């Protein structure tokens, strides 16, 4: 006989507001049913009522842990619809900012994961200290702390400030040391090992069948990353390698993010050394002119949480239709597959390892 218990929508570990109906037998999970929609506010509909470049602030609030990545994906879709080329220096600036944003997002993931496991507030304090430094760098570069709105058609709103390179390299040197410290702290911690190794296994076949993307997919042994599969901007020139691990358990998903932070740090250094001089500023939309009617564009981007696709049908002044493939929405539905047969106490470490943002799920 199984018992149904309800978790959420307000619960410290559901990463926002998510309602989970869990069927348990004893302490073993039989089934998990996620009930979503508590943050739904109809972004896709709102965007249809706005001019093209009035929408980026809405896009940033889709994923508030890594706002710039969504902003960039939307602007890239508009650029494709209008046929705008991105300037070369701007491509480098975008890559630098996106990778810094990815580092901030993965740092946040570490803190949230350890919080979900119940006891490691230390980790939360450490990662927020480093995350604040990333936000400082981005604030220096864009003028905002959290919602940057730094993308314009064909470029960026603000170029990098003169002392950005030095500050950024100093931070990355600091970060590399800190990541080693995190590894030492977590991977020798018996509680952390106990709650991650062999817990919540997702096989490569299941992951592919469920449409899971991002670090969760790469932890299951599928080296699919949009940055290497369909390189955009200068990722091809910077020699990007997708990270891949085989096990598919919580520990692999944690490990993939650590390796990705190292890779991002390397990419930012590489981009800073190769960045060309010139103009990086984008143009306002009135200088570019109206879009064609009924042009359908699909743009695919690798966000910190997985692959995001923007499907847009254009109209002269505003998007006729925008459909967003949100990575979190699809990754959430891998949770029942991973949780079945596990202990109830491990449910939140599994959910934490998926790195969900509920605003991205509900849209």
């Amino acid at each position, binding site marked *: 006989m199984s018992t149904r218990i309800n978790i959420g929508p307000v619960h*410290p570990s559901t990463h*926002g507001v998510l309602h989970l109906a869990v069927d348990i037998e004893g302490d073993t999970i039989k089934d998990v049913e996620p009930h979503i929609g508590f943050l739904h*506010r109809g972004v896709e509909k709102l965007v249809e009522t706005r001019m093209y470049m009035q929408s980026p602030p809405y896009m940033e*609030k889709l994923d508030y*842990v890594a706002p710039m990545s969504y902003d960039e994906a939307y602007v890239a879709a508009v650029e494709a619809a209008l046929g705008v080329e991105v300037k070369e220096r701007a491509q480098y600036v975008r890559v630098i900012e996106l990778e810094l944003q990815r580092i901030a997002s993965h740092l946040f993931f570490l803190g949230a994961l350890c919080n979900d496991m119940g006891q490691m507030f230390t980790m939360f304090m450490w990662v927020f200290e480093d995350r604040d430094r990333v936000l400082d760098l981005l604030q220096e570069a864009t003028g905002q*702390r959290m919602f940057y709105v730094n993308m314009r058609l064909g470029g960026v709103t603000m170029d990098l400030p003169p002392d950005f390179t030095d500050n950024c390299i100093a931070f990355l040197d600091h970060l590399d040391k800190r990541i080693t410290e995190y590894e030492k702290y977590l991977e020798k911690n018996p509680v952390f090992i106990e709650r991650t190794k062999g817990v919540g296994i997702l096989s490569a076949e299941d992951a592919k069948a469920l449409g899971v993307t991002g670090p969760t997919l790469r932890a299951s042994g599928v080296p699919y990353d949009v940055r290497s599969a369909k390189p955009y901007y200068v990722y091809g020139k910077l020699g990007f390698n997708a990270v891949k691990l085989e096990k598919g358990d919580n520990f692999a998903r944690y490990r993939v993010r650590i390796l990705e932070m190292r890779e991002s740090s390397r990419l930012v250094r590489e981009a800073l050394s190769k960045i060309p001089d010139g103009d990086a500023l984008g143009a306002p939309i009135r200088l570019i002119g109206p879009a064609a009617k009924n042009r359908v564009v699909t743009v695919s981007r690798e966000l910190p949480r997985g692959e995001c696709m923007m499907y847009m049908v254009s109209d002269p002044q505003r998007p006729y239709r925008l459909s967003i493939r949100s990575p979190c929405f699809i990754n959430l539905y891998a949770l029942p597959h991973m949780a079945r047969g596990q202990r109830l106490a491990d449910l939140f470490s599994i959910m934490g390892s998926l790195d969900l943002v509920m*605003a991205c799920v509900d849209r």
Partner: protein
Amino acid sequence: MDEEIDHNSREFLNAKQEMDQLVMDSMKSEGKPNAMFAKLSDLFKAIPVSSSMVKWSRKNSLWPLQFGLACCAIELMDFGAARIDAERKGYLLFRATPRQCDVMLVAGWVTKSMVPEVKRLYEQMTEPRHVIAFGECATCGGPWWESYNIVRGIDQVLPVDVYVAGCPPRPENLFAALMKLQEKLGGKVGD
């Protein structure tokens, strides 16, 4: 399994009844350790609620509820983290259950499906309770003003004490908001 459960039995009384019963029991026979409860409750009855001592203690022990809705919750977490360090002013006692809290920080947009939950949380908090509308969305609906599924400001549902502007407000603003709330509860707050 088939045993009948008596819901009026001692084990199924709710907390208040149980506590009352405990106090009554202890008053009957002095000398038991439970006599402590009776004396404490008499002491609290003796102090008027409007006295300066009650005011002072309410002002200086704010217990916020750990309750995040959206973007502003990230800044709320930053408020508790290493750089801002809310604990130096004694604010960081975020509890996960509303029954231990008296300050609700509404951080994020409130959708129509979320209103019953927010209301229920508010009703579960201990009195006197206060609400801080943190950020544009909780203040007036913010960027989602025209959305079909949004409550335009939490003040349509709950009585709000302090509004904080910003999208999202910086964590420092939350300091100012909590100091404002303290001022409201009992006079000026020193630095």
